């Protein structure tokens, strides 16, 4: 019996391979979108974790010096006092084909040594310690180590990209560090009875293990963005799966009714369909996971750039197939099938032998449904705002976003119905009249697809506005922050002084860039000392200022802080900021400092030197009437290496390049979402096809040609898409506002001004209309070519 039913159901697919294809393609597309986002997410997460665990072993605190370098005797003193510590020397190294980060560690005490890919390669463990030593790097980075005087390289795939690990003695030689250390790792478990750190090494700053979460917090927020996108794609995916299954059901209404009439029990039918849907889900899920993998791999260079650019973490630019996200993708397909199929199967269970024809059923469900949707939508949006109002934090922000999105999706159909009613009232010609009324009648059948479109468009506008606002603000900020013409770095203080003396008579102004690593608002941060120069007053990107700010600053009677410190520690102008024990200054202003995760402050150089005497003096900012000439003269006079002088334009290009790549991925995913939403419209239109013909045939009989009807079908889809886009615009802007002033502050610690980009909206609108027109094209062409005999059949006796 079951076999016979299944065979009858399957026979349908064999006769209509196109319909089978739509079912599988819909399921696969939804799964692919979800899988791609998850794959990217998982890969970025894994790579970041890998990099983090190697560079900053989780179970260790660190000691750093405000001056940047720790003398070897401090380390020796710590060991003698019984502290379990491990020295680290880090620097940039020209390795031949590329510049890499060289990490010198003590192989005996370092807590996270890499594992060689091939243990035979590693040779005798003592080789690592004995000259010439060994370098550990992942195979890609290893290939770039072409300099002749480097020790042999051992490939180790668990090394993060761009980082080379070696024994500290080797690193000292290669970096010519002269025994100084970059930082000292402090194990969490220490023997009892040792003297206090502050007694042995009073000028070092101790960061406990947890306090290093600064970059992790940032990365988490990036992941959060991805996860939010993943959830959205899941929602859009469910819409499609639902539509596709509805289509599969609708197309086989006739055969189902025949089977019922032949005495097949409704339950047997439902079971058979369920089995069939699960099989389709499994098949399509696998295909979707494969497709998602391809998409993810194609997007991954972008993902790597995003993470690397924004947070300075290298992500391996290749993708490994992870069982976790294969399972998640399949789960999405099957779960979606069960969820979306449940209501369709419910219909199959109750399928009367003589069912209502489509429209009546739609409309009966419609009127009451619209009111219910209106109420539910408003309630959801209010609940979201209530969450922000009652609770703080990222989660509340996301609850607000979710409520906004879902609530608006529910509001869509009632709002569209209202707009269409107005349109119908304005229509004068009979066909226009019919067009408006008919769109309203179509709403219940299309609303799911239109919701998918609304969400896709709103997210596009929202994320697009956020990203573009970010970029614009950032460019402006770069202009102001990099207001000097040349930036010069040197290796030591005396050389800087020599350069300064040479430059002063030749340049308009020479500004020092000197800073100390201090704790600010309980987090490790940096304090810069500036001299009094009009350039700061003219260009520094202040967000908030108080009267006489620069005067107080240069008098050493005030400090300005970045937004991260302002939001992170809740410090505002008028408050006092403690820079060191016993040194407190009033905050006189807040400035923008995008892209920097850490707290920062600026005061006068003299005051800073008075409290932190050993500030390194390694960087100069120079303003000049003719920067290229000055740079050339400087190179000739001092024989400076090529990268010692950075022209401002070059810095800007570099920064903007990194920044633009950062949001590459958002655009790609947006396009994908839109395509998927277009597919949702297509499946809905195909689903409605069977009930559409009886609605169109009378109009044809009364003298509207098939060609005209086909055009009207396209026009209708485009008009509905346009109206949906109209509603998506305010929603998207609201979304952007939430992202910029709720999510961003929670995640990054800075609030961005919001800019509007009408041109982007126009482009998006055009895209949406094209997607809708393309989706309507297939049914329209089918209508255009429909033989009159098929239309006449609608009027024949047989029902």
């Amino acid at each position, binding site marked *: 019996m079951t076999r016979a039913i299944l065979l009858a159901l399957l026979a349908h697919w064999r006769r209509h391979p196109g319909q089978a294809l739509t079912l599988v393609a819909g399921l696969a597309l939804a799964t692919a979108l979800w899988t791609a986002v998850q794959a990217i997410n998982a890969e970025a997460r894994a790579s970041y974790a890998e990099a983090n665990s190697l560079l900053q072993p989780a179970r260790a605190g660190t000691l750093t010096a405000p001056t940047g370098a720790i003398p070897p005797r401090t380390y020796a003193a710590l060991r003698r006092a019984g502290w379990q510590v491990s020295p680290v020397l880090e620097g940039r190294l020209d390795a031949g084909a590329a510049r890499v980060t060289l990490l010198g560690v003590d192989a005996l005490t370092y807590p996270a040594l890499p594992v060689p890919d091939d243990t035979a390669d590693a040779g005798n463990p003592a080789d690592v310690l004995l000259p010439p030593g060994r370098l550990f790097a992942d195979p890609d980075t290893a290939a770039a180590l072409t300099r002749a005087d480097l020790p042999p390289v051992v490939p180790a795939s668990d090394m993060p990209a761009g980082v080379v690990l070696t024994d500290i003695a080797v690193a000292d030689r290669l970096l010519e560090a002269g025994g100084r250390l970059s930082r000292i790792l402090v194990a969490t478990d220490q023997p009892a009875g040792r003297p206090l750190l502050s007694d042995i090494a009073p000028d070092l700053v101790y960061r406990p293990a947890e306090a290093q979460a600064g970059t992790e917090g940032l990365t988490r927020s990036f992941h959060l963005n991805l996860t939010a996108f993943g959830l959205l794609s899941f929602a859009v995916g469910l819409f499609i799966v639902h539509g596709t299954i509805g289509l599969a059901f609708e197309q086989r209404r006739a055969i189902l009714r025949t089977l019922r009439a032949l005495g097949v029990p409704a339950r047997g039918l439902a079971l058979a369909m369920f089995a069939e849907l699960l099989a389709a889900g499994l098949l399509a899920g696998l295909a979707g996971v494969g497709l998602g993998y391809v998409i993810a791999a194609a997007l991954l260079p972008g993902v790597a750039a995003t993470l690397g650019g924004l947070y300075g973490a290298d992500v391996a630019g290749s993708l490994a197939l992870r069982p976790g996200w294969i399972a998640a993708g399949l789960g999405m397909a099957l779960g979606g099938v069960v969820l979306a199929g449940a209501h369709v199967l419910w219909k199959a269970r109750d399928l009367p032998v003589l069912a209502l024809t489509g*429209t*009546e059923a739609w*409309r*009966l469900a419609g009127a009451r449904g619209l009111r219910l949707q209106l109420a539910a939508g408003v309630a959801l949006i209010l609940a979201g705002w209530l969450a922000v109002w009652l609770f703080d934090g990222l989660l509340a922000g996301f609850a607000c976003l979710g409520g906004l999105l879902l609530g608006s999706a529910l509001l869509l159909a009632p709002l569209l119905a209202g707009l269409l009613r107005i349109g119908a009232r304005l229509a004068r*010609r*009979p*066909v226009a*009249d*019919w067009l408006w*009324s*008919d769109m*309203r*009648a*179509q709403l219940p059948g299309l609303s799911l697809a239109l919701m998918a479109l609304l969400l896709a468009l709103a997210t596009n506008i929202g994320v697009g506005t956020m990203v573009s606002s970010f970029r614009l603000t950032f460019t402006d900020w770069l202009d102001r922050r990099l207001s000097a013409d040349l930036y010069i770095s040197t290796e030591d203080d005396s050389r800087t002084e020599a350069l300064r003396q040479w430059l002063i008579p030749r340049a308009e102004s020479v500004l020092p860039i000197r800073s100390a690593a201090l704790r600010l608002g309980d987090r490790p941060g940096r304090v810069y000392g500036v001299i009094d120069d009009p350039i700061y007053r003219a260009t520094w990107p202040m967000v908030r200022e108080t009267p006489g700010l620069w005067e107080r600053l240069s008098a050493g009677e005030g400090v300005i802080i970045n937004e991260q410190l302002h939001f992170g520690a809740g410090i505002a102008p008028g408050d006092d900021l403690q820079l060191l024990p016993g040194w407190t200054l009033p905050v006189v202003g807040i400035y923008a400092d995008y892209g920097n995760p850490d707290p920062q402050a600026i005061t006068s150089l003299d005051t800073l030197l008075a409290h932190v005497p050993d500030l390194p003096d390694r960087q100069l900012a120079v303003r000049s009437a003719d920067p290229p000439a000055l740079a050339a003269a400087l190179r000739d006079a001092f024989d400076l290496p090529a990268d010692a002088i950075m022209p401002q334009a070059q810095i800007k290009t570099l920064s903007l390049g990194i920044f633009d790549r950062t949001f590459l991925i958002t655009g790609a995913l947006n396009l994908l979402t839109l395509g998927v939403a277009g597919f949702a419209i297509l499946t809905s239109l195909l689903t409605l096809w069977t009930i559409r013909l*009886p*609605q169109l*045939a*009378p*109009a*044809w*009989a*009364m*003298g*509207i*040609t*098939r*060609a*005209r009807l086909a055009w009207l079908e396209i026009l209708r889809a485009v008009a509905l898409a346009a109206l949906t886009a109209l509603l998506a615009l305010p929603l998207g802007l609201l979304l952007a506002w939430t992202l910029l002033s709720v999510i961003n502050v929670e995640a990054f610690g800075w609030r961005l001004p919001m800019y509007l980009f009408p041109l982007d909206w126009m482009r998006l609108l055009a895209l949406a209309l094209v997607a809708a027109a393309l989706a309507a094209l297939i049914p329209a062409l089918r209508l255009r070519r429909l033989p*009159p*005999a098929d*239309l*006449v059949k*609608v*009027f*024949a*006796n047989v*029902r």
Partner: protein
Amino acid sequence: MLLDIDDVTKTYPGADRPVLNGVRLRLDQGDTLALTGESGSGKSTLLHLAGALDRFDGGEITLDGTALSRLDDTGRARLRRRTVALVFQQFNLMPALTVDQNLAFHARLAGRADPAWIDRIRTRLGLDGLGARYPEALSGGQQQRVAIGRALAMRPRLLLADEPTGNLDEDTGAEVLSLMLDLVADTGAALFLVTHSDAIAARAARRLHLHHGRLT
């Protein structure tokens, strides 16, 4: 001569016998003609051909001086829009439009909407007060009357009706037919109607029977 069906044959694709096989029929202004025949004999098919809906394989149909076989899609659509009106067996109202919009739709398409005339039809058909309703909220008999009203509102030269009383009880059917005959007389159109019922057929001026694809 309003309608001239001359030796028309029609075979549906996939069928082994023709539905219509050499059908001849003429209809003048003011004529009323009833067509009877068994179920499946091709009555609806003939009506649809006369209404320029479907194509035929042989012979010629001339409607209001125009040979249908020479018309393209647009030409046939224009005839349907302006010259003929059909009352379908299943009513086939426009589900998205209200009763009033349905009543006026064909007339507006034809460019002949006359509010006073439509008001008269609505009243005579007993549809007053139902104008704002949608078709699905009407009974079968009411829908049937809207379908007839829609056809008459555009003042067709030829009114084609496919079992217009088939879904009505005998009394209502007789009443609706009276209305149609009256209104046809009012507008000077020709009426070509298909029916099962001898009583209905008897009220038409002429009566034909379709059997094995031929008229007798």
